[in-house]
């Protein structure tokens, strides 16, 4: 049984489909990378899993289950209990994810209290233990710090400590390092992967940084305008992309351009609420688009392990199939 399973999950805000019929699975101990540009719906889909979509957003899914338990059928209270203990989430901006009015220790202990309980002394001991686990030096004295006294990297470590406080089985990390410097990013990613291996958690890593996903993820999902356009084992997707969008994304990275040539930029931007094209959503920007692409939306092709949503998926040479 998969740890997390989504079937045809959609999130709509009024007429706008932020997430459009996506399906994927996360297995225990697996690192799943979700990449896409801003507006691709990658964050919204994770918020939907956590049950954090507020009015006027609307979540629908054929299946949304965690460890075989249907999250949609579950009463609100039970679901809240599950998210936070079994499913935890880390957000992009560590500086605003902590409440500036309370000390770090108070916030960690509060999180522990709601999900586990115990005496004050035990909770404090556990908090120190957690801070040690996430590599914060002098954890006892850090407990009395306020968030503004911590650097960005430290705050993110505290957020991770709070997330793993209840030994979650699935950790959703939404751009966990985007706000941090490269050397700190490396530290945080190393920490996340180390914790993930030790605790055999499932980790969903949402990011716009393709290289980061290429380094750490087992499988990767590429999202575009609310849809999954390609998914598969990370190494395979990045070495031989089958969807023109994945190919274009990879080509637009400066490190893909050898020498001082121009970058192969994909023209235009992700379609928004008012300019969603007919047919394949990439068709206005796709170099291979045909009239067929502009009229009809493509179906998913390929095996469950390696899917691509394109009429003419690319072959190993990176050319569209005839």
């Amino acid at each position, binding site marked *: 049984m998969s740890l997390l399973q989504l079937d045809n999950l959609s999130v709509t805000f009024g007429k706008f489909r932020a997430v459009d019929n996506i399906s994927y699975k996360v297995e225990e101990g697996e690192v799943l990378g979700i990449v896409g540009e801003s507006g691709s719906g990658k964050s919204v889909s994770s918020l939907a899993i956590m049950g954090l979509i507020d009015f006027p957003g609307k979540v629908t899914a054929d299946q949304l289950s965690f460890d075989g338990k249907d999250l949609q059928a579950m009463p609100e209270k039970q679901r809240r209990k599950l998210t936070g203990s079994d499913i935890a989430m880390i957000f992009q901006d560590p500086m605003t994810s902590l409440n500036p009015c309370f000390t770090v220790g108070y916030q960690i202990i509060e999180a522990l209290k709601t999900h586990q309980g115990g005496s004050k002394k035990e909770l404090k001991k556990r908090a120190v233990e957690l801070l040690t686990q996430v590599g914060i030096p002098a954890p006892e004295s850090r407990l009395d710090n306020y968030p503004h006294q911590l650097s960005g990297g430290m705050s993110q470590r505290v957020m991770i400590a709070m997330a793993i406080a209840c030994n979650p089985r699935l950790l959703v990390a939404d751009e966990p390092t985007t706000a941090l410097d*490269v050397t*700190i990013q490396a530290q945080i990613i190393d920490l996340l992967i180390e914790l993930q291996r030790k605790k055999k958690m499932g980790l969903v890593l949402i990011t716009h940084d393709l290289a980061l996903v290429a380094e750490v993820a087992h499988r990767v999902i590429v999202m575009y305008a609310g849809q999954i356009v390609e998914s598969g084992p990370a190494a395979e997707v990045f070495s031989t992309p089958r969807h023109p969008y994945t190919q274009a994304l990879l080509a637009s990275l400066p490190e893909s351009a050898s020498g001082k040539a121009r970058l192969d930029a994909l023209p235009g931007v992700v379609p928004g609420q008012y300019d969603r094209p007919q047919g394949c959503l990439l068709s206005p920007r796709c170099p291979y688009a045909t009239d067929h692409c502009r009229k009809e939306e493509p179906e998913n092709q390929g095996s469950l392990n390696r899917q691509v949503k394109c009429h003419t998926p690319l072959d190993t040479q990176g050319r569209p199939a005839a």
Partner: protein
Amino acid sequence: MSKTNVADSALILKAEGLKQHYHVKQGMFKPEAVVKAVDGVSFNLEKGKTLAVVGESGCGKSTLGRMLTMIETPTDGQLGYLGQNLLTLSKSAQTKLRQKIQIIFQNPYGSLNPRKKIGSILEEPLVINTDLPKADRKAKAISMMEKVGLKAEHYDRYPHMFSGGQRQRIAIARGLMLDPHVIVADEPVSALDVSVQAQVLNLMMDLQEEFGLSYVFISHDLSVVEHIADDVMVMYLGKVVEQGTCEQLFDNPKHPYTLALLSSTPQLSPEKRRLRIKLEGELPSPLNPPSGCAFHGRCRFANERCKSETPVLKLDSYDESEQGHLIACHAVEEDRINLAEEVA
């Protein structure tokens, strides 16, 4: 050294020992602290070249950019523009030369006045600095919009109607309105998505070719820097730790901090991944910088000398083939760095 022999005509911008020290009050009874945001930066920028300034947040790279555009006056040092020292010129002469060094900011949402139309944003530099009649200004604005890939009908729209990439195009167009020679680009693509980032980088390189622009490209993203830069300067806590051509820095990095930066940057292709040199700890507080080499607390090659003596920027004496590759590190000087040992 090769750098000083370059023909003067090609040299556009020359900085020597630029410093920006801030005095910070720490409360009633404590003495004033001095924050050395930028502490002695020197470089030469030639026509049509790109100098990249690399470093993590708080290393002083943005302050450097603000000094080059004279938003802030350096506390010490010289800034030469085509042979004239910008800092000692009269106010009026300064204003005139100032037009030739423009700046582009990171956040395309904050750098355009939200209450003005694109047309008047682009024409503002001309209104202030020239006597061009209205029709000429409009013509110039529209031709510049077309150069950066915008349509003429965007002239009457407001900034909030544009996407991030388009706004950055507008910001670039505005920077070019006064025909500058130098553009200081402060993280111009950091806020953009990869595909849009590529569009903007291409645009910047096209414009460089067309107008013979020189760029001071401030960035934390090493892969972007490797792509666009001719020369690179790595900064740590206000000081330059390594300086050289793009090839020197990326193919033969020497300073332990540069090595750590490079190895921390995620790489797409497995072959390119380097041995991860894990940096302990974080950037020290600039209010209370470490003695000696500022990097010694996080550096695995540090010894007693690093703790007490500040290293100066100089050529690597063990590698004489490398012209103009400057490093500020005792360990490199003493040839104590052995990465092969690290692997084992």
